[in-house]
Structures are given as C-alpha cells and as structure tokens.
C-alpha cells in the first residue's frame, strides 16, 4: 500500500493543532463556567462579568483552528490533495507543535486564573477589570505560540 507520507503528516499536524488547543480551551472555559455558576447562584447580577471572564480562555481553541486551517490550505487537504514531500509534511506537523501544546497548557492555566478572577469579583464586583487583566496575562504565551506556528507553517516550501 503506497502511503502519501507528506499528506499524512500534514493532516496529523492540522488535526493536532485543532484538537489539543481545542481541548485546552474546552477545559479552561469549562472550569470558569463552573465557578461562574456558583457565583451567579448567589447573586444573579454578576452574570455579565462572569460570562466575560469565562470567555477569555476560549481564544486558544480559535488559534488552533486557525493554524489547522492554514496547514490544511497549504497541504491542499481541503481541495483534493497537493503532492507534498514527506519532509514538507513533517515540517508542517512539527510547526503545529507550538500552538498545540502551548495552546493546551496555556488555556488550562488561563482557565484556573479565570476561576480565581470569578471568585474575586464575587467579593469585589468593582474589581472586574483587574480580574480580566490577570487572566489576559497568561494569553501572552498562547499568542507567542500562535505567532511562531504561523511563521513556521508559512515558511514551509510545498511543491
């Protein structure tokens, strides 16, 4: 059976980027949602601020999707398959590693900070800005991971 290793590796890279970053965001947003439900059960007026904090860990999933899409377009996965060499495919696979693992772990950590932020605004609703800011600090690393993944994917010579 003749396998197109280039395409396979590229597909694996796209899948990994989307899956791992998505898992991270799902876990992060889920954690924050649980904390938010607790706060809202005591004080329904806090819902807006809790929702805002809950949304913040969600960006890593979107970044993963973005890189998956860029890899898929580059390797022709969406339009019927471009012939790419095994080296190019493996390069694409490795290029997805930063956003996959960086997104996974930073989203989980960001979720934990979001949970603490939600607990903070339960006691001090006026400090919502500070809670948001602390949560966003973690996202720096997801952004850096996205950047390097994008640059690496862009730099791969296909065909």
């Amino acid at each position, binding site marked *: 059976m003749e396998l197109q290793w280039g395409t396979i590796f590229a597909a694996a890279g796209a899948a990994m980027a989307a899956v791992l970053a998505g898992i991270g965001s799902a876990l992060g947003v889920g954690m924050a949602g649980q904390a938010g439900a607790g706060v809202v059960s005591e004080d329904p007026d806090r819902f807006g601020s809790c929702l805002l904090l809950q949304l913040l860990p969600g960006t890593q999933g979107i*970044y993963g999707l973005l890189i998956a899409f860029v890899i898929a377009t580059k390797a022709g996965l969406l339009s019927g398959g471009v012939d790419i060499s095994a080296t190019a495919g493996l390069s694409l696979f490795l290029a997805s590693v930063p956003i996959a693992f960086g997104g996974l772990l930073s989203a989980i950590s960001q979720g934990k900070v979001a949970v603490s932020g939600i607990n903070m605004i339960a006691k001090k609703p006026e400090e919502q*800005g500070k809670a948001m800011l602390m949560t966003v600090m973690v996202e720096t690393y997801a952004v850096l991971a996205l950047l390097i993944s994008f640059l690496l994917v862009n730099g791969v010579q296909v065909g």
Partner: protein
Amino acid sequence: MIVQMRRMTLVAHKADEADILQAIQATQSVEVLESGEESSEQAALEQAEEKVRKLTDALKTLRPYGEKQGLLTAMPEANIADVAKQLPPALTFSDRLEGIARELASTRSEIEKNRTIIESLRPWDRFPADMQTFQDVRGVKYFTGLIAASDVEKLEDIDACAEYQLFNEGVVRTCVVACPEDEAKSVANFLKSIEWTDYAFPKTGGKPADAIQRLTDRNRELSGKKSDLEVSLANEASGSAKMVESALDAAVIERDRAKAAAEIARTSATFQLEGWVPQDKVETVEKAVKSVTDAYYFSTREPDKGEVPPSVVENSKFATPFEQVTNLYSRPDPNGIDATPYMAPFYVLLFGLMLSDTGYGLVLSILCALYIKLKKPTGMSGGFAHVLFWGGLSTMFWGVMVGTVFGMDFDTLFGTTNVFPLLVDPMDNPINMLILCFGLGVIHILFGVGLKMKLAFSRKDWQTAIFDNFSWILIICGLIVYAVPSSVEGIPAVVGTVGLGMAGLGALMILLFKGRANKNPFMRTISGLGELYQVTGFLSDILSYARLFALGIATGVIASVFNELCKMLMGSPVLVLKILGILVACGLLVALHAFNIAINTLGAFVHCARLQYVEFYGKFYEAGGRAFRPLGYKTKHVRILDGKSSISD
C-alpha cells in the same frame, strides 16, 4: 491632567447642617472625611440603611413580574424633589409587598410539608389503628418499619417470640412487629441484621388513611390560597416597578447624606466638616454653602506632606473616555503624571491594528454610536462605548491598509488587482508585517521614555532625564540605525557607524553616570553595568508587540474560514439544496461573523490595554492613586436632572 486637590474645612451652625449638606450634595464635588469621633447621627444612618434594604428587597420580589426594559432605552430623568417624593408611598408599598411575600412563602412551605407527610404515609394506607395510641399496650413492644420484600421470609425466624403484619405490596413493604417486652432486645438485634429501616409515625392522630385524606384536603385549600396570593402579588406588582426604582435611588441618596452626616464632628452648637475639593470647584462649593446661610467659616489649604489626597483628572473631550481604561489599572499618583491623554491616540492606533478588518470596524463603530446615542451611558460603560467607537474607526483604517473586509480581500470586493492592501499583506509578507509591528512598538516605548524625561525635567532633575532616560533612547535608536545598512540595500555603511556611535555613547552614559549616587568610582561602574542589563527588558518589550501581528491575522483568517464554510454550503449543484444552502448560509454568516467580532473585540481591547499598562506605563507612570468619592447622587435607575454627572466614576 491631574487636578489639584485642596483640603477644606467648614464650620457652621448645627441648625443649618441639614440644608448645607443637601446643597453640598447637589454640587457633587466634596469628599467628606471621617472625623474619627462617635456621632449622634448613628441612629439616623441606621434608619436610612433600613429603608435602602427594604426597597432593595421589594425590587427583588418585583423582578419576575416587571416589564422588560429595552436594551437601548435611556434611563428616565427626574428632579431630586420628585424622586424624593416617591419615598413614602414606596415604603408603604414595600411593607405590603413584604407581607404578601412572607405569607406566600409560609403557605408554600406548609403545602410542601404536608405533601411529604402524605407521601410517607401512603404505604401505611391499610394500617387499621390510630397512629398515636396503638402502642399504649402494657407488656408489648411494637416495632414499626420498612422491610425489603426479599427479606420477608427471614421474618419467619422470629415467629416463635413475635408476631408481624405487613401492610402493602411492593419492593419495600411496611411492617409492624410485636413482641413481649422481655424479648424486645433480641428482636431489635434481629431486625438490625436484616434489611429493616425503623419508621416513626408523624405526630398526627387517627388512622393513616384518615390523616392522608385530611392533609390532602388541607393542601387543596392551601393551594387555592396560594394562587390567590400570587394573583394579588402580580396585581400589586404591575406598574409599580418604576416607582420602587425611583424610591430606591432616593433612599440611596438620603443614606449617603446620612453617612456623611454621621462622620462630621460636632459641638453643642456647631458642626465641622472636613473634606477634599478639586481646586476648580472651590468657588462652587462656597457658593452652595452661602446660599443656605451667611454664618459659616470656610477655608481651603494645600495638602500637607503626609496627606494623600484623592486622584482627580481632567481631560479633553476625546481623551476623557480613555480614563476608564487607565482606571482599570490604577489611578495616577497625585504627584505623578496623568497618562490618559498620551495613551489615547496610541490605544486607538494599536486597537485598529489588532482588529484590522474594515467590515468589522464599520459594524463596531455603528453599534457603539447607536448605543451612545440611545442609551446615553455614563461612567465605565459610557467610557468603554466611546473607546470602542474610536477603535472601530481605527479598525476601518487599518483594514484598508493591511487587508480585509469581513474576511474577504478588498481586491475581490472591488474587482481591482493588487491595489489593496495599501501597506502590506500579512499573509504574503509576514516578516515585513512583523517589522511594522516592532517599529510601532519601538515608537511607543521610546515615547514612554520621553514622557519620563519630561516628568524628570518638570521636577528639575535633569540628571535623571539625560543620564537615565535619554541614554536609553540613544542606545535603542543607535542599534536600530546600526542594523539598517545590513538589511536595506543602498544605504552607505557610514550610517551603520553613526548608529554604533550613538549606541556606544548611550551605553557610556549609563555606565559612568547611572550609579552617580555612589561616590566610589568602582561601585559606580558596577551598578552601571547592572543597569545595561536592562537591554533585555527592552528587547522583551519590543517582542511583545508581535501580538499586534498575531491578533491581526487571527481575525482575518477566522473570518475567511467562516466565509469558506458558507461558500461550501452554497455550492451544491442540486437546485433545491442550493437554495436551502443559501438561506442557511446567510443566517450562519451573520451569526458567525457576529461571534468573531465579539471575541476579537474583547481580545483586542484587553491585549491593547495590556500593552499600554506594561510596556508603556511601565516606563513613566506612577500608580497608586485612590478614587475620589464625592458626596453626590449615586443613582442606578433614574438620572437626576438638577445635578451634573459625577466627576469620578
């Protein structure tokens, strides 16, 4: 810029106290300080707090029955007198409401209690004796309980010393076991060893069947009463929500006044009020006091060395909404500099680059403009609405420069070839785009260093300005100029040498003069060396601006992904499916792009703010100011007409 605060002292007759406080509250310019003494006004404060609590509870009870307020309707406006007039009728109304709510709650709980008893008695339906009196037989011990159907045969084992009777069918069967008193202990042990749960009858008399009937009847009449109460609650509620909201605002205003009154020092005939007033409001406050009485002593002075006045700033119409962004981080130290007017244009510029999609910018600006016009928000949400409006305009600009409109290329939209994007396409040319972002970052950071120089000069500290800050500007610019000939063709090599010279000069200045506090020349150079290490800090700051690039392409690529998705939906060759696909795709497009706008606006807002706080403010800002909390009108539901909007908040 930062407004000077003055510490004021006002002494006047006790008789005029209430009127003076009301007049001062109308100016919304005085923060009253605690006098630290025990006050006779505590009782009045407690009463005022009680009113606020009652009305808040009433509002909570009314909430399920209230009419929904439109998203874009403005707050109703009223005079302070009208609002205060709503207080007495609202208080009696809230008492009435509280009574009905309490009765309703107790009725509900009684219904629930009866229902539980009925359910627990149902298996004992066939029990023939009175529940309370059947045990009053001498010499016999009764055990009532529930036994698993599977264990019924085990009861045969105690047949010798006890009698048992079952009363229902099913998985769990109700059972009574009777035995002579001396056998009681062994029977009890036996029962513990099988699947037996003790059951105690509830404290009502008569047979279980009678009790069930009685309680069901009682529940029926209670349910009738409950629905009557609910109807009367709904009747009371309709139309009353507005009155209670106005009254709640009035009660809060009164409570704030009472709180201020409680903090004033008093003698037998006079009272003394200490507070902070902004410099430009001193006349207004004095006029307000004069309108009440001529017999007063009013003086203001500069803050003392140890005192920390609150932080008040005044800015141009464009920059004022951006104060909300600064306040998210920290108000400025009164002795420092107000960063908002310098931050505002950079914020707008960088926000646009992060969102960089003309279509999204258009939608954002339109939505914000509508919100501001219709809902007339104030305070934090008003500030953010204005900030996002300007950000939307900037986004439209950058969208044309850098690339996309609703995820599509401008070229495909206008049918032109290669005219757009006007500046650089991040997808084709990531390195140049990165250089653009880093360049903006360098400008931002150097501007911050320049502000620090300005601050130092204004404090007559030219050494800090030149040796600590200008030297860094020289180093960074020098290094950049040095790198130019090697990366750009056509620049003579001498430019590189000039750059190297600049950087060298800057480094020398730091090395020699940074540690100028130290007399020992050796120690000076060592601390200068340590300071040079800060170049890594600058490097990481500049790299941080790469997020402009990352967030910019993120928006565009996600939008184009959504477009591709919907294009696939619309591409079916079968006509019926194609029409269906187009319908679904249109709805989907709107929803997906709306989602994308929301997520990316949030991200751009927060990341742009973070860039200001860490990279920009870190260079010159002195944080730590405390908020100015004047005695004023802190209303949530009504806008008071004769007061201007509050300075702080």
